[in-house]
């Protein structure tokens, strides 16, 4: 099995499609629900008038403008207004789905929606902190770069025009995109480290959700083999963006037809590709994380202030290590602190510190991964999750 993050990432993404599919479903549902009033109002304006004919046999922008005028007199005022609720809803869902996704990829263990959401809720504030940190760091950097790019662009614009000026501007924009991608990659790794760290307990008995403790390890992971990781990230970002662009464009190209399904289908394909490549990126990053931080070393990477006594959770290690799928270093000695995926991957933050192993029976060890077994074995854990 290849250890290359991009192929392993693809493998993981395909093997655990639930997070991706749920994200896509939420994306579609959020947009569809957000557009409900818009659709109703637009239907009221256009469905019973013969003046909408240019939108049936073609796609006349003037008719859209006319309907838009009527629409603007309505409660929304603008086509964009429903998006003000739809996008935040999606972002919230994304916040809730990403942590579980990362854990799924990290552990190569499928999770149902409930498990995904629970993980999301547990890691919610960690991710909010990471997002704030991302904005705090990326904002000034990208802001400064954009300002610099604007200044350079206007300097270029003083002398050069036309296509060469556009291409030079594009170089600047690509540079900003690369920096933004690197920042995203780093914070993606911070997120992975955070999820990983959260599998360990603090002396208080609560899962370790310290974001700051992950920054340095994430930096080390980021720096290790950076060119390859960055190229993978950029390749997937460009692949997703390009696919979404081309598919949306061909969706538009079908607008003039007297049917809607080609437009809808191609548009959704574009959206799905974009989400798919983002999850692929996440999975590839997880693989990279794994490659850089084999289980053996992960106990030390965060250097917890008060290491949790190893003996107390020793029994769990075997199962974790043994259930590890093939491509990962099966020979790695089990982690001293990580709980097994089938024991209690989502430790409940409770008031009572519980360093003791979960009394639940250990799942059978497998020599090689068997998704079917995983599926059937994990489902009954509802009692733990709900």
């Amino acid at each position: 099995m290849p250890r290359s993050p991009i192929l392993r990432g693809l493998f993981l993404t395909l093997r655990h499609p639930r997070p991706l599919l749920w994200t896509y479903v939420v994306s579609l549902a959020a947009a569809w629900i957000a557009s409900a009033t818009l659709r109703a109002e637009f239907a009221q304006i256009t469905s019973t008038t013969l003046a909408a004919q240019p939108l049936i046999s073609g796609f006349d922008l003037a008719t859209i403008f006319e309907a838009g005028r009527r629409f603007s007199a309505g409660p929304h005022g603008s086509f964009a207004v429903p998006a003000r609720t739809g996008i935040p809803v999606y972002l919230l869902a994304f916040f809730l789905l990403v942590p579980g996704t990362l854990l799924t990829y990290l552990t190569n263990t499928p999770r149902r929606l409930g498990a995904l959401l629970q993980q999301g809720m547990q890691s919610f504030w960690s991710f909010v902190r990471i997002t704030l940190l991302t904005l705090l760091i990326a904002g000034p950097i990208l802001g400064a770069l954009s300002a610099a790019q604007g200044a350079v662009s206007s300097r270029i614009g003083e002398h050069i025009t036309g296509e060469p000026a556009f291409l030079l501007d594009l170089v600047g924009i690509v540079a900003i995109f690369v920096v933004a991608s690197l920042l995203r990659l780093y914070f993606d790794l911070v997120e992975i480290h955070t999820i990983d760290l959260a599998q360990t307990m603090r002396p208080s008995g609560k899962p370790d959700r310290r974001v700051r403790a992950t920054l340095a390890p994430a930096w080390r992971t980021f720096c290790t083999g950076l060119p390859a990781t960055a190229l993978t990230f950029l390749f997937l970002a460009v692949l997703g963006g390009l696919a979404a662009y081309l598919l949306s464009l061909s969706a538009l190209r079908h607008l003039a037809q007297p049917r809607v399904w080609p437009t809808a289908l191609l548009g959704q394909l574009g959206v799905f590709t974009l989400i798919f490549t983002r999850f692929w990126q996440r999975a590839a990053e997880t693989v990279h994380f794994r490659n850089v931080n084999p289980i053996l070393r992960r106990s030390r990477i965060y250097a917890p202030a008060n290491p949790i006594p190893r003996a107390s959770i020793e029994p769990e290690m075997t199962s974790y290590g043994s259930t590890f799928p093939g491509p990962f270093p099966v020979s790695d000695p089990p982690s001293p602190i990580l709980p097994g995926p089938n024991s209690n991957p989502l430790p409940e933050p409770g008031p009572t510190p519980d360093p003791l192993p979960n009394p639940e029976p250990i799942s059978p060890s497998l020599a090689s991964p068997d998704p079917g077994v995983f599926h059937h074995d994990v489902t009954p854990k509802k009692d733990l999750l709900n």
Partner: protein
Amino acid sequence: MPRPVHLALLALASSLPALCQTATNSPTPLSTRVVAYSIEANVDPDHHSLEAIETLTYKNLTGQPLTTFPFHLYLNAFRPQSTVSTETHFNGGIRDNISDNDYPGEKLGSIEVTHLDAVGFGDLSLRFTAPDDGNAQDHTVAEVSLPRPLAPGDSITFHLNFKDRFPLSVARNGYKRDFLMGGQWFPKPGVFWHGAWNCHQYHATTEFFSDFATFNVHLTLPTRFVVGASGVPTGDTVNSNRTHTLGFYAEDVGDFAFALSPNFTVTDGTYLSSLGPVKIHVLALKAHPQAGQRYLSILQRTMEQFEERYGPYPYKIITVIDPEPGSEIGGMEYPTLITGDTSWFEPTYITEITAEHEFGHQYWYGMVATNEFEDAWLDEGINSYTEATVTGALLGRKTSVLNFPWANLSDASLQRMQYLLASDFDPVTRHAWQFRNEASYGAISYGKSATLLATLEGIVGTQTMNDAMRLWFTRYRFTHPTAEDFLRTIEEAAIQNGRATALGYTPTSGVPCTQLPLRELSDLTIAKALGDSSQLKRTFGVDQYHVIVELPAGAHPPCLPFTQPNSDRPGIGVAHTGPPDDLRALRQTMASQQISSALKAFAVAPTTMTFTSTTLRAFFNQAVYGTQVLDYAVDSIDSSPVQWWLPAESDLKAKDKTQYLDTVVLRRRGDFILPVTVEVVFSDGSSLRDSWDGVDRWKKFAYTRSGRIVSAEIDPDHIVPLDSDVLNNSITTAPNYLPTQKLAAIWVTLHQLAAQLAAWIV
């Protein structure tokens, strides 16, 4: 560098202007040339400035002695104190929006007259005036007073030395990178019009107005610059200091502009008009490699359209300037020189539309030289209307702006969309600087004017409108007509085509008919006579379609085309008031001499009668002079069994026999009144059209039919684009949700893409 032979020829050419026409394809002058300019200018493109000596000879054709001369000094508008800057700051400007609280130094411009004298009048001085708003700091108009009056018919020759400083491109003027547009760059006298000087200040939304003139201009500038200018080139002399002097000559034009850039590439072509060849001289930027051919192609096709529709282009050249991107110079008209507007990537027809529009101004502003300050709609509005017509013919009626496989947009729709942005603040006839703001100026002068003329075309018919536009051009080219001249031209064409009816006649001398000493019609006023033709016949035995009137002594010669002079009884006029078919018949009979004897038999002399009003006035009063908004709607449709008390028939056969009371209620939602046509389609496949005068607030049509109403539509031929809401013009009982589904598909996809993009923060 030109070859010596060329130079000799050009030198010869430059000496020709005095002898015959060199810049037009007409053997004789086309206009009454009031001014003759001769300007020698040294242009310094690096410092965006020039120094010039202008010799200006003004011929006093005003019929009265003149003691003052106002001059436009347009470049002084580019100062924070000017009226243009103030108006732009508070209300927006058409080519700039200085909303910040500072005035950038590079946008400063000025024109300074350093010396002024007049031959025989000695040294003179200019005094700034502000005829429109009294802003003493405006400095865009200055007046000179002569020590003694200039007698009617006499000429005066002014010598002016002046310095220009061009601003960073603002309001169609100035520089951008190494490109320089010299527009409105020399002192130019106002127009003596309707008994007074007409010399308005420069305003944020106004354009220009000037007399017809000849221009003999020499520009000296560094050799690396390629220059385009109004008129025909007359010479290119290389000087010792790496400069060259370029000569240009223009005649029968009101203005002179030039543009220069080291980055121009030349694309030349020819259009063969019925008057002679016209050179299309395109100076496109190297950064726009496609632009040269695109401009050339659309201009050739546009000129063909204009010649066919309105009349030939008489000048020998049209120069197209492709201005620097990001400048505020794109899309501007000067006589025989226009600026285009394009980009290195331009997949729409905006490039073509702009070129067409600016070329159209050669007719509507250049030749039919209306007052752009006071009647912006006569140049921009008429031009936008012909733009939609011509681009529709050339680029597709529904695709003249966008012709993508997935979407389309027409120029006529674009005009209508602009009209809808601010439809009811100002009438189209408002002076350009008196609009509520720039947005209203744009919406009304361009969008509403074009849309109302398109509506008028729907009312009077395309043929009538074509006739009217052709008449407007051929009758008023090289004059300064007014809005009323235009409206009366349309009325005249409409009457001749039977698409409008005259509501009264008056002598063209302007004397009210009630003041006429009527001899033959002693007991009748003209109005009465027109109102009761049978009485005329009884009294005078004349054909009921003729009116005999006496005219006051010294009345104007005949104006109606079908009348002939009669030396026996001068001062007697005849005017036709019959229906159009009779008018045509009358004209045919006229040609065959019979009517001429008939006229004599009735002792009818040349007429000078013209209509006082027509049935089109109601439309003009609302659409042109008024701010009324037009909006008729189908309020409701209903189909109920006539025998409503009977139980509903379940069996199909019985259902077929059911008689329905089909009702359509129309509603007038706006304050604009216009007759309405409605088309009703029934489920039995039949349809009918009904009409309503549109006066009341609502109107109900009821029909008893065996079918239910499927749809009812106001303006079924879509000839009233002035209706501000076309979506309420119809109701159908067969709803179609495809538009909603299409919009939803795009909206949902875009929403998802945007949301996913936003998710990059997580």
